[in-house]
C-alpha cells in the first residue's frame, strides 16, 4: 500500500493514470450528487450548466435521466 501510494504521484504512467481515473470517478459522483440537489431545488439546466462551465446540452445529456427517474419514483410513491 505504501509503495502504491508513493508511486501514484511518482513517475510510473500506469499508476499515475490509474490515480487520474480514480479522481475522475470521484468527480463524476460528486457532480451527479450536486446536479440532483440543484434540480430538486428548482435550478434550471441552463443555470447548472453555467456553474459547471459546460453547455446546457452537455449537462442535460449527462444528467437528463434524473428527470425520468424522478417521474418514475413519483409514480411509484402515489
Amino acid at each position: 500500500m505504501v509503495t502504491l501510494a508513493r508511486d501514484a504521484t511518482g513517475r510510473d504512467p500506469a499508476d499515475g493514470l490509474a490515480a487520474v481515473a480514480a479522481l475522475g470517478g470521484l468527480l463524476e459522483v460528486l457532480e451527479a450528487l450536486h446536479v440532483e440537489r440543484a434540480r430538486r431545488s428548482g435550478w434550471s439546466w441552463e443555470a447548472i450548466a453555467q456553474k459547471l462551465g459546460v453547455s446546457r446540452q452537455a449537462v442535460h445529456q449527462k444528467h437528463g435521466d434524473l428527470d425520468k427517474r424522478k417521474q418514475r419514483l413519483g409514480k411509484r410513491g402515489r
Partner: protein
Amino acid sequence: MLADFEQMMRLAAEESERRDHRYLGTEHALLGLLCTSNARAVSVLRSRGLTVEAVEAELGRLEEEGVVPRRDGGRELLRSLGIDIDEVLARLDRSFGRAAVDEATCRVTRRPLWRRGRRDLAPLAKPVLVKRALELAERHAQTAGREQATIDDVLVGILRLTSASAPPPTASET
C-alpha cells in the same frame, strides 16, 4: 418490497462491508437471505445443505483464490493524491445521506460511456451488482400476481441470474 426483504438487503450490505468487498453481489444477498426470516426459500436451501456456514466457507475459498474483488484501487490511489476517501464519504453522508450517494454512484457507473471494469473507480460507494437479480425477482412476483416481491421471489431472481449468463425469457414472462 417487504420488511423481510429490507432486512435481507441490510444483512447483505453488512456482509459485504464486513468482508471488505467492493461490491454488493448475489453472494451477499444469498447470505442475507439465509440469515433472514423463515421464508420458504430459506428452508429449501437449508434442506439442500446450503447453510450460512457453507456459503461463508465457499466465499472464503473464493477470496483466497483472488476471485472475489476486495475494496482497493481507487481508495489507495486517491489517498496518494492526498484525498482521504473515507473522510469525503463521511462528509457526503452528512450532507446528502448514504442512500443518495449510493444512488449517484449507481447512476454514474451505469452510463454507457462508463467503461466496463471501471466500477472500482467510483470509490465512494459500492456498485450493487445484485440489482439485476432483484429486477428478475420483481418480474417473477408480478407474473405470480403478487404486488411485492417476497424473499422467495428474490431466490428465484438470484437463481435465474446465476444459472445462465443471459437467462432466456420464459413463456410466462413474455
